[in-house]
């Protein structure tokens, strides 16, 4: 009691409910109006069939059954989900691994650290739509400088319609996405590495650990919380992706639907969906919410347990 009082009247244990309400109230209201209410609305909308903008009949889970039985949505649902999974796995493997590698390299350098951090994070400032159109132009098989450069050095066989063939479209998407967002893991891992007590690293070095050993035995376990945060954020980002894929491949998901993802499927249901577009797309939105929210919570739990 004495101790907390000595710290001052704003110690966390003593802030009154009124003050908490005062400061969090406005944000809570906005959050409710802009997030909770739409989610709830989508859930209710999804229980009806619609005629344009007029609710027609209560169908319970009928719209959900439609999504899983009506051709071609039933097939697209599976392939879109699979592409989201591949996108997540690819992003974890490429963006976050390279991001971690760069963070470790920058952690050990003194000169130029800031410059490189800024450079790698610059694409953050661009809208994914702009990034998408930019890369679509760079990769254009007819005008694109990338293929022209490949031809100029004699690699004609590699001058491919990168975004035009199913085998390369998704990998290229993963690389472009990684190019844009690699600054995220770089900065978060960098901060986590900077937070490791120097004496731990020194103790390891004194014991003669190689830098490889030092990384796996000392640094990596210490940055596990950051790994957890990055994994969950990457998951949410990868399963909600829309703008970049739309810019690179249009609303049908690129060549033969090879980049189709849940976000695009939702877009098509909502905006090219016909008379019951609101019913179909609301059901789809609820499914996506349940998937992303559920897995994100599960991932959080799992990673927390491993940290402990």
């Amino acid at each position, binding site marked *: 009691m004495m101790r907390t009082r000595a710290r001052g009247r704003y110690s966390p244990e003593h802030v009154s409910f*009124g003050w908490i309400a005062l400061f969090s109230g406005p944000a809570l209201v906005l959050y409710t109006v802009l997030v909770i209410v739409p989610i709830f609305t989508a859930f209710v909308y999804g229980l009806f069939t619609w005629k344009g903008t007029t609710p027609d009949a209560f169908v319970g889970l009928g719209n959900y059954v439609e999504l899983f039985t*009506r051709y*071609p949505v039933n097939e697209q649902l599976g392939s879109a989900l699979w592409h989201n999974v591949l996108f997540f796995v690819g992003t974890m493997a490429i963006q976050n691994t390279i991001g971690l590698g760069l963070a470790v390299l920058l952690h050990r350098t003194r000169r130029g650290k800031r410059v490189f951090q800024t450079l790698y994070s610059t694409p953050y400032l661009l809208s994914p739509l702009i990034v998408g159109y930019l890369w679509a132009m760079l990769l254009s098989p*007819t005008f694109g400088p990338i293929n022209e450069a490949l031809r100029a050095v004699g690699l004609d066989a590699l001058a491919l319609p990168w*975004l*035009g063939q199913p085998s390369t479209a998704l990998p290229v998407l993963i690389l472009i996405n990684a190019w844009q967002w690699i600054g995220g893991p770089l900065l978060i891992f960098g901060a986590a590495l900077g937070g490791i007590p120097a004496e731990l690293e020194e103790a390891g070095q004194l014991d003669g650990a190689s830098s490889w050993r030092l990384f796996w035995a000392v640094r990596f376990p210490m940055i596990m919380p950051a790994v957890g945060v990055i994994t969950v954020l990457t998951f949410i980002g990868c399963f909600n992706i829309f703008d970049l894929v739309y810019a690179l491949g249009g609303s049908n998901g690129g060549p033969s639907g090879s980049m189709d993802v849940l976000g695009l499927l939702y877009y098509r249901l909502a905006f090219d969906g016909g*008379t019951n577009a609101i019913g179909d797309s609301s059901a789809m939105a609820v499914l996506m919410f349940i998937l992303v929210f559920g897995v994100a919570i599960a991932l959080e739990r799992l990673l927390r347990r491993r940290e402990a």
Partner: protein
Amino acid sequence: MSKFRKATLAAAALTVSTLVLAGCAPSAGPAGADGDDSTITVWGWRQEDAKTYDKIFTAFEDAHPGVTVEYVPYLNTEYDTILSTGLKDASGPDVAQLRSYGLLQPLVESGDLVALDDEVADLADFSPSVLDGARGVSDGAVYGVPFAIQTLHVIYNKAVFDELGIEEPTTWDEMISAFDEIKASGITPLVNTVTDTWMLPIEQEIFGAGTYGATPYLEKMLDGEASFTDAPWVDSVDAWTSTRAYWGDAYQGTSYEDAQALFTSGKAAAFPGGIWELANFRKANPDLELGIFNAPAPDGSGVPVPGYVDGSFGVSNASDNKDAALELVQWMATADFGQAFTDELAQISPVPGVTPSDPLLAEAVDAYAAEPSPYITYAYFSGGTPGAWDLASSSFSSLILDEIDAAAAAGKIQQGIDQWFTPRS
């Protein structure tokens, strides 16, 4: 304790004011809405044409003293959403530009539009296939006065054809040997858009109409006596893909913009597409001399010209100025409006008796009038979900990339529409 009270009260007050602010936002009226009865508000998606529409409407205003017609354009891509809400309310449009065929159906189903069959007498002179573009599928009533027709052609670069001494082909074989000659000269004969999949059904229609048999085959399909999976239609898809030899290197990656640029820069000799491209091409390269032709039927049976209705003008049921609005759409069905429309906007008017002043447009109109052919996937099998146009766009994408053959692509379209399509009785 009193401190706690004060803070709670402050929080409550803030909460209430935020709620009020948030509640205000959606009810703010849309631009151009007003309750003045002498103003007819027309909503549309053509921002680039707003000034021209105002000019066209002057003639109506002059004939109706005291009446003002105001064209309020919205962003093309957001228009459908804005319109579906706007039609619910008297503060919305009196007259609205409506999409055609399948995209019109949600508005008809919501009961937001006035049926015009008994209101606009001049509609009786329009051809039935044109009125199909503004018809409700469920009740067969006409809900708009069609304002534009788009026709589909092979648009070509006259300079390239002249230089090689090539005439406009009159048979399929002449067309193929023309492409061969152009290819031998080092120019891409025919640049097709591939990655923007909405163009694929257009290309199939341009090169396939003569193979499946145009309108008579459509009639059979609507009666349930023919389908996408029958030989004529599957062959029409093969007829289109047989031209792939002329599409240029790495055509799998060609986007809509790429194709346009290749054509206007003279690197490609021909571009299969809609008549609306003329404006784009002339803007991109004013020196380009353009010509149009259509793919002749391989069996010599004719030269079908595919076309479809681009949109119509309808009257909102929620309008509090319905009489004036009806008078305006009645005027839109007359040659006065049609001629002004085609002259000012360089588009094809569906109003009977209107001739475009632009020679190429006039050529397109004559060709379409001589042998009209439907745009089947977009116009006639898009009234349900999934629509044939979406199905064709995605299955043709797989087809062009050699993942499936024409029969499988047709099978996917048929499988999709079989879920909702019932033949007319």
